[in-house]
């Protein structure tokens, strides 16, 4: 069976800057894959290409076997996306917004379920622009999971959340993988990667410097130690 997300020798430059420089990795269904890397390593560019928001210069990106650039509405319905900047309309109210977004999918609504799990009920009637950072974060996550995606790209899903909310989000994300979704989480948190991920991809300077099951990548040390040794060496080289 082919991987749900498959990146092969992907390249993308902006002017002279090689944001992604021959990256190869994959993510499987039923697994949480954590993508780690320093700022500017090319994670966001790579994920944007997989989300259909950007185009590669060379190499291939496949999500559920499809090139995401210009993919169909049915493909987009199977892929959930949580953006770094949220992308939430500032004048909307959370529950109304989720109901609206849910109406774009053919599957039955799971708005109530997500509102309950992510504790969005207290914020139901507040305009998005008046929500706290954590509430916005949880709303963006709910929006990404509305369509019961087969693949979910979650950009720092717990950044800025309090410890209880982090646990709730980790449970939710784990649950998504357990029902069979391929979940790709970009994060700067080693704790998040260690608690959540089945597989880890470490990116530095546009390339993948390590990928595989968490224990394999950690190679007997902690993920943090391994990360610094890999990304420092890469930065120095």
């Amino acid at each position, binding site marked *: 069976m082919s991987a749900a997300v498959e990146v092969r020798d992907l390249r993308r430059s902006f002017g002279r800057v090689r944001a992604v420089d021959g990256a190869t990795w994959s993510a499987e269904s039923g697994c949480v894959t954590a993508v780690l890397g320093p700022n500017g390593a090319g994670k966001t560019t790579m994920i944007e290409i997989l989300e259909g*928001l950007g185009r590669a210069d060379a190499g291939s990106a496949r999500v559920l076997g499809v090139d995401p650039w210009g993919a169909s*509405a049915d493909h987009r*319905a199977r892929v*959930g996306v949580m953006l770094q900047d949220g992308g939430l309309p500032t004048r909307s109210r959370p529950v109304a917004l989720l109901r609206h977004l849910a*109406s774009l*999918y053919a599957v039955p609504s799971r708005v109530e*379920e997500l509102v309950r799990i992510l504790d969005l009920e207290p914020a139901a009637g507040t305009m998005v622009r008046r929500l706290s950072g954590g509430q916005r974060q949880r709303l963006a996550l709910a*929006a990404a999971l509305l369509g*019961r995606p087969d693949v979910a790209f979650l950009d720092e899903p717990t950044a800025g959340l309090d410890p209880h909310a982090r646990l709730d989000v980790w449970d939710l994300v784990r649950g998504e993988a357990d029902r069979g979704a391929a979940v790709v989480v970009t994060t700067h948190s080693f704790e998040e990667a260690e608690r959540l991920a089945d597989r880890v991809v470490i990116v530095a300077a546009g390339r993948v410097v390590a990928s595989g099951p968490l224990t394999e990548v950690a190679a007997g040390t902690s993920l943090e130690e391994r990360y610094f040794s890999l990304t420092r060496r890469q930065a120095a080289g």
Partner: protein
Amino acid sequence: MTHETGVSSSSDTGHGGPAAPSLARVRAQTGHELRTLLGNGEQLLVALILPTMALLGLALAHSPSLGAGRRIDVVTPGVLTLAVISTAFTGQAIATGFDRRYGVLRLLGVTPLGRSGLLVSRVVAVLVVEALQVVVLGGLGLALGWAPRVAGLPVALAAGVLGTATFVSLALLLAGTLRAEGVLAVANLLWVLMLGLGVVLPTDQLPRALGTVARLTPGGALGDVLRAALQHATLDGPGVGILCAWLLLGAAGALRWFRWSE
């Protein structure tokens, strides 16, 4: 245990399905756009309240001179032009500029709605708001004695659609290239400038040099085309040509330079 959230035990099969049908998606998004537009005080101000004040003010006053014909017959098409500019240009430019800033365009672009669905929904929402404006402002004009030439109505309707397409394309060009604050400033400035450049006052009533400039702006051209159609039941061919040129310019520029994120 970490799996007590009920995610896995929900009643569904656990798998993603297809998107809702395209018509349903566009209908849902159009409804969402309309609720946002009509729930926005500033938008209502430029879409309805300011044009209403312009209509009442110019129809009931005796100056400035509006040229030949009854004042209300000159004023109403001009105010309808102003309404089109408010909704299709100013409102769209500002909304799209800020949606771009906050990543809303990117988010909706990755949902089943997609970029094309978003664009279609926005245009439909603009047309619905314009229809509402025509009912309110046209109704007020009729109450004040406006007598549009029935024979000119089809041309006026077509010109309204052409003008809408032109202004939406110019709004997207602006919103897709400048920063949100820049869009806000420029869109409002152009609204005020166009107000004085042949939108509510016929271009032939302006000082000559200014009238020529006004005639070449999309607002002045649409104003003249609507006045010719509704006041005299004639087709202002050059005016239509000027609008088409702006449409081509706006659409080509937006296709070339529009960026989905800042």
